[in-house]
């Protein structure tokens, strides 16, 4: 089984990288991009039967810093 974990800065935490990307898009002539947030995607190949709780623990302990980041788990 595979889990895809998306880690994003929490809403309200300023994202300088996303802001730089937004500026660059504007400079390229793309209008109307009002906000860009940049995060990361982590793919985990897991033993069958791994529970969502176990993946959540991985996120809490290592994959995300929950002081500043939120995470989303998708299992496929």
């Amino acid at each position, binding site marked *: 089984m595979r889990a895809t974990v998306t880690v994003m*800065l929490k809403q309200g*935490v*300023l994202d*300088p*990288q996303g802001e*730089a990307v937004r500026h660059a898009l504007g400079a390229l002539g793309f209008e109307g991009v009002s906000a860009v947030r940049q995060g990361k995607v982590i793919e985990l190949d897991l033993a069958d039967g791994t529970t969502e709780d176990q993946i959540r623990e991985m996120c809490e*302990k*290592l*994959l995300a*810093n929950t*002081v*500043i980041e939120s995470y989303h788990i998708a299992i496929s």
Partner: protein
Amino acid sequence: MKAAVLVFPGSNCDRDLKRAFEQAGFSVDMVWHKDTNLPDGVDLVGVPGGFSYGDYLRCGAIAAQSPISRALKAHASRGGYVFGVCNGFQILTETQLLPGALLQNMSTRYICKPVGLRVENTDSAFTSAYEKGAVISVPIAHHEGNYQADPDTLLRLNGEGRVAFRYVENPNGAVEDIAGILSENRRILGMMPHPERASEPLHGGTDGAALFAGLAQALVAA
């Protein structure tokens, strides 16, 4: 007085920190990240700057899970002194020995230059040799030095006098110009600027030396 300096793959200020501790009178052991114990009788642990584990995932995140970090946490919970500089500060927030987090600089650029720091609080071993309100010059060298914490944490840090240093001119977007903070028991200091790089005349400035001298003084008295 015994100090230990942790060494992770990618640490690059470990020997500078060792030297600054030695100049202040500590005997210093270097401790490899795979070690599971600190040397017996260590009073002070230095967590140095650099790029531990290549800054993979998040700065300090992998180091915080390394075997020696468990020993570091045990040392801290015994009331031992810990000093984290730059990447060391990032590691201390990732281990949750200090609150908050270090984000990318607002400019998205790596910044390497001397900055003015105001000594906000002298009620700690790290800052006792300074005068409150003194402005000192210490270099910064970081890409993720933008300190952030939630409003409740900031309220606590301010209320308990745990902000040790603030930037005179904010270089990185850190909330409330915070450059360095203390733990609740005031025995852990994490800061982004590098006092170990401003502790001998050849460095071009010696404003950082008093931090190490103050630590030595406090530990001799203890």
